[in-house]
């Protein structure tokens, strides 16, 4: 019998060794994710009068958030915009992923995926600025269309409003949507598609009855990956959104930094998180349904 078995010391049981192993990232995650998250939730139940924080727990912020129509409006707009971004991104990502998976020679696929990630080489901020240059009143798009004689007046509905936010975010998140859909499509056994054809279905119906249902886990993943971060995005609405394209994150920032009302900002942040969680759970439940059949 070994000594260690007779006298188990700290750090020698299997569980303790496991904890030891994950301790650094665990501490890191606790310090930088759990603690701030807890702080936000705690803040949302406090109140602030100019510079003095009142630590007494109160529901005042939440009452205000629900009674003041501006907040609800911003939350709703955030949902609408990121919903639109998600729809546009996933709908445009699907054909690209499909093309790479089904029509690119196997040896070239990794190169295509590599090319798709190229936009990530420049910073997010620079890409947003570039869209400003493209969509602006005297921007690339308007001058080109005017030069070609398609329009007389520059188009104004494409910058400093919600449309611009949707266009910019959809571009920024495209690779995040393409990759999970691509992976799901790659996993589909090609003989299933031949079986669909063999059993009398056209290409289109085979796509509808076989390819799409089997790609759904990838589509749902893409929806979540795009939807969750875009609800809270505040750089893009700030830069290209104009007054009509502002979202809830911009209001949270304003509460924290300009209005000196951190508790109110925190309450809005908690509400936004709750909203995202609700939508995510909905999609995860949908995904369960599609994952039911496969392992």
């Amino acid at each position: 019998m070994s000594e260690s078995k007779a006298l188990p010391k700290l750090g020698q049981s299997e569980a303790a060794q496991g904890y030891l192993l994950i301790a650094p990232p665990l501490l890191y995650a606790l310090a930088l994710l759990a603690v701030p998250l807890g702080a936000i939730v705690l803040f949302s139940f406090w109140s602030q009068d100019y510079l003095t924080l009142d630590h007494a727990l109160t529901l005042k912020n939440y009452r205000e958030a629900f009674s003041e129509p501006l907040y609800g409006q911003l939350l709703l707009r955030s949902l609408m915009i990121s919903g639109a971004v998600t729809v546009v991104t996933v709908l445009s990502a699907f054909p690209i992923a499909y093309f790479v998976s089904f029509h690119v020679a196997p040896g070239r696929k990794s190169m295509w995926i590599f090319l798709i990630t190229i936009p990530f080489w420049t910073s997010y901020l620079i890409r947003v600025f570039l869209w400003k240059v493209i969509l602006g009143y005297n921007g690339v798009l308007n001058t080109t269309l005017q030069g070609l004689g398609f329009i007389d007046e520059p188009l104004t509905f494409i910058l400093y409003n919600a449309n611009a936010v949707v266009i910019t975010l959809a571009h920024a998140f495209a690779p995040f949507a393409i990759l999970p859909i691509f992976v799901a499509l790659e996993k589909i056994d090609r003989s299933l598609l031949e079986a669909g054809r063999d059993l009398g279905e056209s290409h289109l119906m085979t796509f509808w009855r076989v390819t799409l249902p089997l790609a759904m886990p990838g589509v749902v993943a893409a929806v979540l990956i795009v939807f969750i971060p875009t609800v809270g995005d505040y750089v893009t609405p700030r830069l290209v959104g104009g007054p009509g394209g502002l979202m809830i994150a911009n209001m949270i920032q304003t509460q924290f930094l300009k209005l000196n009302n951190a508790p109110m900002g925190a309450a809005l942040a908690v509400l936004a998180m709750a909203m995202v969680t609700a939508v995510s759970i909905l999609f995860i439940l949908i995904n369960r349904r599609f994952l039911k059949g496969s392992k």
Partner: protein
Amino acid sequence: MKDTPAQSSPIITLENVEKYYGDYHALRGISAEIGQGEFFSLLGPSGCGKTTLLRTIAGFEALSSGRLTIDGRDMAGVPANKRPTNMVFQSYAIFPHLSVAENVGFGLRRAPLSKAEKARAVGEALEMVGLAGYGARAAHALSGGQRQRVALARALILKPKVLLLDEPLSALDKKLREQMQLELRRLQRQVGITFILVTHDQEEALIMSDRIAVMFEGQIAQLDAPQMLYRRPVTRQVGEFIGVMNFLPARATMTDQDHIEVEASGLGRAVIGPDQVPGGFHPGQTASVGIRPETMSILFAGETTDRRVATGIVEDRAYYGDMTYYEVRLEGVERPMTISMKNLVGRPVLDRGAEARVAWDAGSLVLFA
């Protein structure tokens, strides 16, 4: 080469079918007729083009040239979903997102049947393959043999003119495979549909088929009934591929229309008929004779025979319980030949190095010249 024709009117005709993949010549002038209600096998080593041929019939591959008709209709330009064929895929291709019943009923979507009629058809198809009551199961919860039955039911429910089977038994273990071979044969007789089976397993082809097309390098080497293929292979390659065949160098001369004189090393002189030269007699070429292991026998001590007798030495033996396989080297022959003997009551098993008298008949020789 004269092939055995189909016994019934042809459901499929292939005329000079060619298939190229770029420079690769996958099918080289395939011509054949496959009969109504026939169990037809495409047999050959991997890469011989048998699966390609099956896929051209299914409509997954277009012909480079030549003609394919199914039930009298030219199939040029007819896509897979419009052909009167259904396929059992090698991987079975069971839809993982659907239940067993949904898989089996997949092809019924546009059938002019009510929901209840479709459900009944699915139930009947499942019963036919021995899976009654499995309809509600998830596809991924099935075993390999069950998946294959689902694939069969899914194809047969559409009552195709031709059922195509792409190595359907290769993924199953030996016991299950043997059971499914007989079951497939029974099913084929029951439904009366033409089955075309692709396989690389010669035993499987012999057991199941009415006729077999043996393919090498994109061509049909021989198209015959199993017995003819086994007993009268047209080339050494076919003889070697199907079962075990011993080959001996030989000299042959044609004495008259109906007699060929053969001088085979180790065996000696014999006179054979033209039917024993299934590949045709080409004088002047290096010839060899082929003889199957079970057509010869070893004469044990005291046994006499009026058959021809050759002598040799037992080089090796393999004892299989019911059978013993001897490797006997005949006098004047370099390579030993295989002789199989049933282990009947009272028969000894010869040891290595023992002298052996081998009885044979001129009638079981096949000449390749």
